[in-house]
């Protein structure tokens, strides 16, 4: 018994040590909001050397698709370089804004079969994945009591505009559970007005927790440790709870090797961002100028 106790104490000390070393994941995906808060709190508590502020590294959340796939079998520096050049060329043609999973977007594409040859769709972004020119995102909405999901490719030249109607994050990385939630949680009007955030504010996190419909579900949501579901316990049987406990993998967050394999090392990231930083910054400033002009000219048109 005492041995077991000692072992658990050892584990705790190891965990504490890891937390103190401030080992952070440089994930290619946007970091979880909570992790950030924890990191900030820690810094306050410990009060050690401040983290070197690298503005380039902030870009890994805003432009995650510029980081290549970390699988070493698929990597090639020349291909990645050519891909980035093509991405920047496309970004010069169309404004691809900053958005996250949970943001509400309106996408207009040119469609040869649609009336007027364009098609506009509004929805909540439930996933964002892929690297380089393969980057894609999925929008979900409920139209006429029917759930609709459309997957768009970020660098598809048929996309005319991508407009962020509400910039925010949710509690989870992927919102697939909206498919099993009540339809009110994924219903958004097509004539929604864009909400403008004041400059410099951090991206807000929407703490809304959705209600699931009764079973059957598309996936076993209870096993995925989701924070954005409120009423999952009432649908679970004793059997499900037992299985959930058995399937838990609490050691995975301490698996540094696994984390390393999933991410791009910081030295390589610095190289990549150093290559594209200036162009992205230029695009950002030019975009700001355009929006300012629009704000100035809007009242005139109303008066007229």
């Amino acid at each position, binding site marked *: 018994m005492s041995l077991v106790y000692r072992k658990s104490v050892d584990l705790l000390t190891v965990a504490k040590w890891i937390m103190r070393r401030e080992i952070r994941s440089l994930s290619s995906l946007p970091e979880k909001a909570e992790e950030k808060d924890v990191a900030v709190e820690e810094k306050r508590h410990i009060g050690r050397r401040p983290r070197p502020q690298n503005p380039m590294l902030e870009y890994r959340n805003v432009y995650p698709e510029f980081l290549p796939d970390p699988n070493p*079998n*698929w*990597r*090639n520096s*020349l*291909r990645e370089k*050519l*891909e980035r050049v*093509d*991405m920047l*060329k*496309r970004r*010069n*043609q*169309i404004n691809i804004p900053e958005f996250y999973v949970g943001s509400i977007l309106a996408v207009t594409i*040119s*469609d*040869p079969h649609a009336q*007027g*040859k364009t098609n506009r769709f509004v929805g909540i972004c439930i996933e964002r994945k892929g690297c*380089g*020119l*393969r980057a894609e995102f999925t929008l979900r909405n409920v139209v006429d009591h029917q759930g609709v999901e459309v997957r768009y*490719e970020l*660098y*598809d*030249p*048929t*996309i*005319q505009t991508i407009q962020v109607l509400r910039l925010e994050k949710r509690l989870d990385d992927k919102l697939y559970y909206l498919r099993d939630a009540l339809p009110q949680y994924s219903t958004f009007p097509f004539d929604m007005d864009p909400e403008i955030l004041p400059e410099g504010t951090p991206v807000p996190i929407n703490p809304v927790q959705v209600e699931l419909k009764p079973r059957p579900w598309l996936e076993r949501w209870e096993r995925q440790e989701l924070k954005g579901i409120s009423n999952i316990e009432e649908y679970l049987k004793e059997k499900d709870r037992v299985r959930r406990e058995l399937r838990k993998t609490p050691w995975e967050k301490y698996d540094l090797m696994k984390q390393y394999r999933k991410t791009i090392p910081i030295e390589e990231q610095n190289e990549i961002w150093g290559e594209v930083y200036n162009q992205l910054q230029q695009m950002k400033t030019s975009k700001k100028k355009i929006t300012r002009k629009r704000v100035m000219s809007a009242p005139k048109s109303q008066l007229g």
Partner: protein
Amino acid sequence: MATSNLLLLCNSFNKLSVSNVVKRCCHYRPPRYRPPYWFMPKERVVSEDMLTQENRDFLAEVKQDKHNFQHSLESPLTNVDTPQTTEWTQSTRRVGVIARKIGNYPLWTKDGKKFQTTLLQVSDNHVIKYIPPDEFNPMKSKKMKKEPWKEKRTLGCLLVGAESIDPSTVTKDYCGMFTKVGMLPKRHLCRFMVSPNAQLPTGTPLYATHFRVGDCVDIRAKTIDRGFQGVMKRWGFKGMPASHGVTKTHRRPGNIGGGGEKARVWPGTKMPGHMGNSWRIIRGVKILRINPEHNVLWMLGVAIPGETGAMCYLYDTVLPLKKLKTPPPFPTQLNSLEIPQEYYDDCIHQFEQPTITFEES
């Protein structure tokens, strides 16, 4: 009347016949070990040389000098004052290039359709040696000995190497093949059969612009080595059910032979075994885009054999309907300076062009 029509049809079919096309047979062929006669063993046993640091530095300097000298050499074609007298015809065969597969990413057409493409990098290719048709006597297999080759050879052999390497890492014999003609040894060496009028002098560099966009090429490469595989992965058998009383035979082939008079396993029966690491030729792959600066070709499709980083050999296609119609750069393209940044096929949307919109008819 009917017979003459039939003859005409036969004739036209005969014209369509494809020479030298390797049939993709459904049966497994064991690997034939038949090295080319110019082949020399390449791998060397590396031993500790007990050199001082000074000597090491000196050797490194010499290697660097040799490398620089090799790169500063001009193409021997540029110095030739008289242009090539021979013209390209449909029956001539040009030299091919050695390329490295560096990955794949999508391109879009002008009508908004998405194409998956494979990127091939033509890396540091040089012509090593030309062997005229009379002197070219490849090693004959057992089958050939029975029926000796009577037809007169018309094609010569052109050796092409890719990627210069450190001469001290390879054997003396292998290195000697290159030093005889005044080149640094190359990591990859390949043979292309060419018409005598398409021969090239030693040291001619080959670039991605050897091909044009819109042309079709054949690509020969080694497939991914998957090791010893079962019958489901190797031949696509269905296996057996997961339940309903099935025990221990979920991925097995089942019956492999009949009874009675044929009570044996027929030759060529599909069974478990080694899968992959065999040569395969994919024919008629279209080139969609060329970057002459980095020597990169964008090929249509993702079916080019081998994993990312594997080498493959490209040459003009032999498919009769996809053969070159207009004369390509012959015998090869000189790297002239006044070339545009990139070449695109007509159907491909360039990323610097504005967004695709459709007109209402």
